[in-house]
């Protein structure tokens, strides 16, 4: 493609400006701000339009940036040639009315559809605006505007289409994410999970089929049981009918029996009733008679008892009168033995005892040691003046003697001393003799007193005993014996007296009692006898007669009871529905009952078995009913597995194809790029340059005997290398229709030497491309146009 000319109506600072372009190199040298960059952007806008964005930053919103301040049409046209044919692209940018675009065939003057007028650049070159900017349009911005030094990345940037949101890496990442559910380890991947679900579903299906099989087996059993139940129920019905007949027969029998019994009971009762002469005794009446008979017996007993007692009392009275009682005899004996002289007076025995005790005490005192002699010491010592004087003198002389011995002469002292002792001793002797005398007198006096008393008391005791002839015995024993005998004598006398009195009273009482009893007995006997006779008992023995009557009444009561019971029994008896012949055969109801019970048990058992079987059938049915669900589930899962495997395959294949495409792309261009790049480098450096493209599509330049990363080189050289790269890319990419190159002052950073190299480069590329070279400083003019 070659640009012929352009006309700018209004675009940025340019207004009503026309430009013609050479087919080779067109150099435009103007000052800054004159619109060189504006022209470059105009050309780009004619080919690719404006990037649709609403960013406020002017550098990012070219449409807004280059909108003319003055009024008028915002746009223009561009004439160009492609494959020998001339075209014009007219564009007018209008935010309100919308952009107007025309693509005109200049030969015919009419609109043409040879290219997409709204996307002319892509339509002609096959790359979008981005690709164009990165290859054919070298702006003032840093030439190395690629994302990295890597050729492939440059290629990717170049080759990314418009509106692509992601790159190869992003696309592969997305595909990895899509594949990741299928790559999980440990059986956690999606395929394995579905296979497990299928396995489970098959297992459940097998279980459902098993239940279906069991169900098939259960159904015939159910039929058999149902038939059995039918048969049993029929038998039961028959047995029930027979049993009912047996029950009816039993009923009839019972009723007839009860009726017969009742009639017999009535007859028996009538017979018993007739014996009472119309006066049927009551049980109460007979109880009363019995009571009366008992009373008679009791009274008779009392009577007899009283009579016996009376006789006894009379006998006793007689004895007492005769003095023949044992007690009376004993009284006489005692009198003879002891109390001939008369009985001891009241208190006499006590006196005797007292005297005895006293004499005993006195006798004991005689043999006791004397009480201690307690003299009056005051009288003893001070009562005898002689003794006292001797003692005192004796002490004084003694003391004097000691003093003389000590102070004067020993021998004299001793003499005096001895005299003192003698005096004292004499006094002491008198006192002692007085004491001894007193003691002796005390002892004699005591003994005499005691003896005297003893004799007196002793005499009293002897005199008492002598009255009753008891002197030879132990006095105390004798006294006790006398006392005892006296007590006996008195007691016996009292007793005899009481007995006599008692006997008389008793005789009187008993006589009265006997009379009363006799009267009572006679009265009762008369009453009872009359009662019994009226009711048919004539026996002399009233008790026997009563018993007979009681017996007859019992019989009558029994028979009456039997009659009542028989009547009740008859009333309670269910009246039979029908009569039976007397020749009716007996039913064995017991056997029938047993048969019925057995049938009932069998039926019950069979019903239970049926219920159990029904439950089993329901259980199996519920499970078996799930069969179609599991079957469908299995099918669905298999289908899903198939789809997942297919999807996984597609993802994997997509990844593989994308990677292959990337490699193909890189390989497709890498050789060409490397060759073109090397060639351009040679032009720039003036020598043959070896370039190495590594695996990551990074490049190294052979310099100084080895391949070196580009970072080793200076900034100026690197700028040049970038331009060479872009040119090499353009060479590789645009094979058919070469684009024009717009160089918008790309060499502003180069020194003079490198500028010369740039000149050479431009001359090289101008031979292949239409180059539009913008520059703002004459030092960078080429002078080659």
């Amino acid at each position, binding site marked *: 493609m070659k640009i012929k000319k352009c006309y700018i109506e209004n675009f940025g600072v340019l207004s009503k400006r026309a430009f013609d372009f050479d087919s080779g190199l067109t150099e435009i040298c103007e000052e800054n701000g004159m619109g060189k960059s504006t022209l470059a952007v105009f050309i780009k806008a004619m080919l690719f339009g404006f990037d649709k964005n609403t960013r406020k930053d002017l550098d990012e919103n070219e449409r807004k940036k280059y909108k003319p301040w003055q009024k008028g049409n915002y746009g223009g046209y561009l004439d160009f040639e492609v494959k020998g044919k001339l075209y014009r692209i007219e564009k007018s940018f209008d935010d309100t009315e919308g952009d107007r675009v025309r693509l005109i065939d200049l030969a015919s003057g009419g609109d043409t559809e040879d290219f997409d007028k709204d996307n002319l650049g892509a339509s002609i070159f096959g790359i979008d605006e981005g690709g164009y900017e990165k290859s054919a349009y070298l702006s003032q911005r840093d030439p190395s505007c690629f994302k990295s030094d890597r050729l492939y990345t440059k290629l990717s940037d170049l080759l990314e289409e418009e509106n*692509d949101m992601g790159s190869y890496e992003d696309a592969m990442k997305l595909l990895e994410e899509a594949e990741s559910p299928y790559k999980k380890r440990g059986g956690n991947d999606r395929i394995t999970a579905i296979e497990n679900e299928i396995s489970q579903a098959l297992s459940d299906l097998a279980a459902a089929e098993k239940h279906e099989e069991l*169900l098939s087996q259960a159904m015939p059993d159910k039929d058999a049981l149902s038939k059995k139940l039918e048969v049993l129920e029929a038998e039961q019905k028959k047995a029930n009918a027979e049993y009912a007949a047996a029950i009816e027969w039993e009923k009839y029998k019972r009723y007839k029996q009860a009726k017969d019994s009742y009639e017999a009971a009535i007859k028996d009762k009538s017979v018993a009733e007739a014996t009472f002469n119309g006066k049927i005794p009551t049980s109460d009446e007979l109880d009363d008679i019995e009571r009366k008979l008992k009373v008679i017996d009791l009274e008779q007993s009392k009577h007899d008892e009283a009579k016996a007692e009376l006789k006894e009392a009379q006998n006793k009275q007689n004895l007492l009168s005769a003095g023949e009682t044992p007690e009376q005899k004993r009284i006489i004996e005692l009198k003879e033995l002891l109390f001939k002289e008369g009985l001891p007076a009241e208190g006499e025995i006590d006196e005797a005892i007292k005297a005895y005790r006293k004499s005993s005490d006195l006798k004991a005192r005689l043999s006791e040691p004397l009480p201690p002699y307690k003299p009056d010491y005051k009288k003893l010592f001070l009562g005898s003046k002689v003794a006292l004087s001797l003692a005192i003198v004796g002490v004084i002389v003694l003391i004097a003697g000691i003093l003389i011995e000590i102070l004067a002469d020993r021998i004299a002292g001793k003499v005096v001393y001895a005299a003192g002792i003698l005096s004292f001793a004499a006094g002491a002797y008198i006192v002692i003799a007085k004491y001894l005398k007193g003691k002796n007198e005390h002892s004699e006096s005591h003994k005499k007193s005691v003896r005297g008393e003893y004799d007196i008391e002793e005499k009293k005791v002897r005199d008492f005993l002598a009255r009753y002839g008891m002197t030879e015995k132990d006095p105390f024993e004798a006294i006790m014996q006398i006392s005892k005998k006296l007590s006996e004598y008195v007691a016996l006398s009292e007793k005899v007296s009481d007995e006599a009195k008692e006997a008389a009273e008793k005789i009187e009482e008993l006589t009265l009692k006997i009379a009363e009893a006799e009267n009572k007995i006679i009265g009762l006997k008369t009453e009872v006898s009359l009662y019994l006779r009226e009711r048919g008992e004539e026996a002399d023995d009233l008790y026997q007669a009563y018993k007979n009557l009681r017996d007859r009444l019992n019989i009558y009561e029994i028979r009456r009871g039997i009659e009542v019971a028989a009547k009740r029994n008859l009333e309670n008896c269910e009246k039979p529905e029908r009569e039976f012949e007397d020749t009716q055969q007996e039913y064995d109801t017991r056997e029938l009952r047993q048969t019925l019970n057995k049938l009932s048990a069998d039926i019950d058992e069979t019903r239970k078995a049926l219920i159990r079987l029904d439950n089993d059938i329901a259980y199996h049915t519920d499970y078996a009913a799930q069969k*179609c669900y599991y079957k*469908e589930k299995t099918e669905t899962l298999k289908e899903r597995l198939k789809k997942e495997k297919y999807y996984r395959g597609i993802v994997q294949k997509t990844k593989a194809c*994308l990677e292959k495409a990337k490699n193909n792309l890189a390989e497709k261009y890498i050789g060409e790029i490397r060759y073109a790049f090397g060639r351009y480098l040679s032009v720039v450096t003036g020598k043959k340059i070896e370039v190495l493209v590594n695996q990551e599509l990074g490049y190294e330049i052979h310099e100084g005997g080895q391949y070196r990363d580009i970072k080793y080189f200076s900034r100026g050289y690197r700028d040049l290398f970038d331009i060479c790269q872009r040119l090499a890319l353009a060479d590789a990419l645009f094979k058919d229709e070469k684009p024009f190159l717009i160089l918008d002052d790309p060499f502003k950073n180069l020194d003079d030497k490198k500028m010369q190299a740039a000149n050479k480069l431009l001359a090289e590329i101008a031979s292949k491309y239409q180059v539009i070279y913008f520059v703002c400083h004459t030092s960078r003019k080429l002078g080659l146009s």
Partner: protein
Amino acid sequence: MKIIHCADIHLGSALTAHFNKEVADERNNEVTLTFERLAEAARSQGVRAVIIAGDLFDQKSVKKSLIDTVLKAIAGAPDTDFLYLKGNHDKDTPFPPEDMPENLKVFGTDWTYFDYGDVTIAGVRLTKENCASVYGTLNLKAGRTNIVVMHGKLVRTSGKAPEDAVNILKLAGKNIDYLALGDYHAYQKDKLDGRGIYCYSGCLEGRGFDEFGEKGYVLLECKRGNISDEFVPFAKRSVIVLEADISGAGGQADIEKAIGTAVQGIGKENLVRVRLTGLLSPETHKGINYLTQKFADRFYYFGIKDETRVKIDYEACKDGVSLKSEFIRTVLADASLDEEQKEHIIAMGINALMGERYEL
């Protein structure tokens, strides 16, 4: 006299091939309820007999509760006879039980005849043993109105037909006025011979998207020797399958619009599936899941089946200088892939380059 002809009710189906468990269970219940409605309709309209031409149940094992429900429905219309023919699905189902209602009658493996006034209804269950001989033993009087009940696929052959097939060639000329058939789930009728017609009543309720269209029963009116038939739509819900050609759609919004147009006027109570067809650019984001969810509230059940094809501009990518073009060329050149695979891979790769996830 009114007679109802229905068939293929398939009570107790799983239905999970098309729906999730919740919807499947609900639809199952609805099918049962429809049968109950049918029995009630028969009772209220004074229908003399209801012919069930096979497949009343979906499978051999059926829950007791379901059997009880069916028996109860039948017993609830004591003046209507239910003439039941077992089909291929329910031939082993233990139904009816011994204590079945009096108004439930069963066709056996020999011709079984039921007379109602001047109408005879005859039916037979085809088996391996009788499939050849059964046609020779059918005995219908010409002067009566004769209805025959059978279940199976339709064949026309003078030779031996499969044991589960109804050979209408051999039924022609047998004085049949109406051949009540079951097995095919869509209503269909045609001439049998010079006298009568055959008719598949179809099923009472569509159970999946392979059973779309109107469903119901056929009401027969027998009057003075003539028999007329009328299809009565009876399903609670219709299964509707629509096509939407979305060729050239720019994106999800366009597809949504196309679907909206397709489903316009469809009632809320129905089960709807939209088949998306046409050629789409691989870059087009279809958003099937989103659209399915968006339309789900408008119907009882809504689904989308994507049958679109990827449109590949082979010319454009032939010489295109881009990763995308190279990728497309790589895929197209791979002889190990079939066309469908190529389309999917290309669509997936291009969507991935655009940063989009592609779902089949």
